[in-house]
């Protein structure tokens, strides 16, 4: 693979299961050499942090971000995770990695040295390369700014709590969280939330309030607000009478056009919206992201072993854990919880390597572009950079893998008493199964398509939403009512949602 001949090392990097910082450092350097030298990965600078299990639970419950504003739902998540963990139902993740620059990976202190090596290869190089290179992350998330922005968000929400009361802030956050899935721009790049601009705006607002402060306002009865600062005329995105309907981003629309929200409430909506936007690519890249990280750690660990840098015992420990990570239970197994993204992602990427190195005739027919080229890293890097789950599956899922997974497609109509098997892993079915699976990962289909179609600002101020049903599938009734109640709170007037057929 690499031009430099690698001699077998004299001694492995570690032989004991316990780790210490010297060993970690030594191992990190060896992994880095392989990742950058052999695999030619391209990564953000790494920052690796060792944390305890309790801190890992903390991290879980704040959406895996190192800092986050306070909200009860995170406390609920923590209580639930903790109970599961203490009861032994769920093991903790070995690592959490954050898409930021520097790329922060958390390692659990309880991991053995082998696991630490595995996790470093997985997170600090696999995920990291993917974060830096995939087009969705490059286009939609701002890895350099996210931590600063979160720090701002946390401070801002805390300040609002102090100023307007916890209940008020909680109500806005509850409503905003309910609309998080509808709070993203799917097709156009959102205006960049530059931190400086946000701060500048706030500063100007504060300045105005200070200048306009009048002792008399304190004598107002409770509940009467002193006049807020006038909206500061910024050229780009302030209300200009044209609401540019239809609008797919409900949070954005409410933030800009709701007749009842105060400035701080709009800012809070914007925080949640930016967060939703930050997480939006991750939702579309589960299979590829985990697949990439798993493939990278598998390759690196094996190279470490080939070069005598880890012992046979470590290799076995690694293979054991790797095998359980990529295990895919069958649909009728009671452990089945959907398709395991690690299994599918890793399976496809290992399969690409096989097709590049040892193609069969079938592969040559299906994948003439790269079958037999031998340079699997080139093909993989291209895939990692330019595809998302849906297109990746549509493009790269091979017949062999469909046979290995024994994939079959079902057709379901709500009125029918039974599912119909539409296609299976055979010559006539490959393409149908593959497309069907790919669509399953298309977030545009898996999530409801809801848009703002109108707002009667001159009349009774009713807000009109429309759900364009895909193949006649409606919204879940009970949750729909609950979410609409939240929308009404933010809009301040009646909200009507109609569900229409596609057209």
């Amino acid at each position, binding site marked *: 693979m690499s031009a430099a001949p690698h001699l077998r090392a004299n001694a492995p990097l570690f032989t004991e299961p316990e780790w210490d*910082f010297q060993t970690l450092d030594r191992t990190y350097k060896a992994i880095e050499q392989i990742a950058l030298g052999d695999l030619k990965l391209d990564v953000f600078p790494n920052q690796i942090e060792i*944390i305890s299990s309790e801190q890992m639970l*903390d991290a879980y419950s704040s959406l895996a971000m190192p800092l986050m504003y306070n909200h009860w739902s995170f*406390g609920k998540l923590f209580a639930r995770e903790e109970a599961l963990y203490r009861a032994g139902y769920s093991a903790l993740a070995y690592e959490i990695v954050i898409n930021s620059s520097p790329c922060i990976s958390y390692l659990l202190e309880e991991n053995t040295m082998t696991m630490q090596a595995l996790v470093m290869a997985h997170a600090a190089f696999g995920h990291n390369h993917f974060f830096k290179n995939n087009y969705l992350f490059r286009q939609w998330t701002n890895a350099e700014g996210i931590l600063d922005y979160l720090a701002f968000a946390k401070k801002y929400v805390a300040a609002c709590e102090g100023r307007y009361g916890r209940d008020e802030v909680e109500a806005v956050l509850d409503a905003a969280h309910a609309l998080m899935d509808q709070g993203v721009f799917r097709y156009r790049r959102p205006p960049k939330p530059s931190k400086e601009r946000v701060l500048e705006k706030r500063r100007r607002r504060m300045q105005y309030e200070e200048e306009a402060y009048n002792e008399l306002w304190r004598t107002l009865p409770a509940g009467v607000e002193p006049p807020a600062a006038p909206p500061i005329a910024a050229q780009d995105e302030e209300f200009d009478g044209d609401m540019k309907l239809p609008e797919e981003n409900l949070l954005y629309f409410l933030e800009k056009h709701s007749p009842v929200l105060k400035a701080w409430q709009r800012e809070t909506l914007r925080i949640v919206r930016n967060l939703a936007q930050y997480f939006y690519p991750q939702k579309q890249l589960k299979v590829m992201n985990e697949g990439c990280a798993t493939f990278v750690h598998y390759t690196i660990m094996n190279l470490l072993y080939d070069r005598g840098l880890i012992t046979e015992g470590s290799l076995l420990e690694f293979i054991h854990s790797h095998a359980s990570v990529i295990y895919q239970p069958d649909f009728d197994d009671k452990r089945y919880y*959907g398709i395991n993204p690690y299994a599918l992602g890793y399976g496809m990427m290992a399969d690409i390597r096989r097709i590049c190195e040892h193609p069969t005739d079938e592969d040559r027919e299906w994948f003439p572009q790269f079958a037999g080229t031998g340079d699997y890293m080139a093909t993989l890097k291209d895939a990692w950079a330019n595809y998302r789950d849906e297109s990746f599956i549509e493009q790269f899922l091979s017949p062999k893998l469909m046979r290995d997974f024994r994939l079959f497609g079902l057709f379901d109509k709500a009125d029918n008493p039974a599912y119909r098997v539409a296609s299976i892993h055979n010559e006539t079915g490959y393409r149908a199964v593959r497309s069907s699976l790919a669509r399953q990962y298309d977030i545009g289909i898996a999530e409801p398509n809801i848009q703002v179609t109108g707002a009667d600002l001159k009349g009774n101020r009713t807000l009109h939403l429309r759900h364009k049903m895909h193949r006649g599938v409606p919204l879940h009734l009970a949750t729909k009512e609950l979410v609409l109640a939240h929308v009404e709170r933010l809009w301040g007037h009646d909200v009507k949602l109609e569900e229409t057929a596609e057209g």
Partner: protein
Amino acid sequence: MSHFIDRRLNPKGKSLANRQRFLRRARTQIREAVQRSLKDSAVADIEKDRKVRISTKGTREPRFRLDPRTSGEHDFVLPGNKEFVPGDEIKKPSKSEDGQGGKQAADSGDGEDDFEFTMTQDEVLDIFFEDLELPNLVRTTLKETPSKVWRRAGITTAGSPNQINLIRTMRNSFGRRLALKRPTLSDIGLLEAALAKAEEDVPQTNETRAKIVALKEQLAKANAKRKWVAFIDPLDVRFNAFTEQPVPTSQAVMFCLMDVSGSMGEREKDLAKRFYMLLHLFLKRRYERVDVVFIRHTHDAQEVDEQEFFYSRQSGGTIVSTALDKMLEIQKERYATADWNIYAAQASDGYTQSGDARHCVDLLNAEIMPLCQYYAYIEILDEREMEVFASEDSGAELWRAYRTVAERWPNFVTKRISRPADIFPVFHDLFKKTEGQAA
């Protein structure tokens, strides 16, 4: 090593603020759950961390989601085909088996059912207190240990004379005397002896005269030095230091007496249990060791374990004095007043065989009250009876009899209750007293 940061020592509990928000949010559900779990737990367990299971009502996080089960059509792919060929049909799980159906498709990710988590004792107590409507001041005294003891805390340079640490003081003094070369008494003695000898020398030569002068000078110097280098200097003095530390004082036994005849239903027993719990909680804070003795009675009293005390029923008449006899018997056997503080809590519905009340009063006045720190009696009524007996003076035979005891002994309290919130006033004096002590 620039890549690694050890975060393990960072403060934990980053999500504590979120937890408080969550508990506040789910207050109603948690309250119900805690009360349910208190009902099933032992009197002494009130202070433990406990698992509670709450419904997610009130903490739902709704999102728009698709529901392909009501109408419309969709495709999905599953792994692990074994025998199906195109055209086969697979029966859908029926709608009632929601859990099963959830496995099928990615779009039914609901998962919002009950869940279980652990609450710390403080969180549980807060809710327990809230229900009993304890005044805030009492809550704090209950949560803190009120009694204090003086514990050694090393050595200081200031203190009262009776706390002088002689060994340290003498050691310092000795060291200082050595360092400053203070002449000892024997040094002086030697000089004096030499001087005396020199003075006795006759005839006196110039040499001896000079010697005498020198010796006298030395002696004077030595004496002067002994004067200004004191044997014990204020600098040397050390005192033992003590600090106040909170400790539970000693041990207490709590007698729980209850009428378990047919007239005591589940509601009555539940109220009684809270009454015992509160007393137990209070005793726990004050005493290092608390024993609980359960005595139940009908026409005949027995010592039983907690399980039987609260959950089994007996038929028979009601003779309250048998329980008092039993209590005395156990106290004599196992709990000498010299070693044990004795508390008693009695719950009943107020009925006893006629004539027995007289007997009870005699027993209490003559034997029991002199032994007890505190004796609390509650009569559990239903709301309707509560109205009838609005006045303290009216009541059944036992009540009227106990009122006479209460008049005589300030540490005997009686109270009628019909709701959990009525319980606390029974202990009012008990808590007032401790506050007074603590202040």
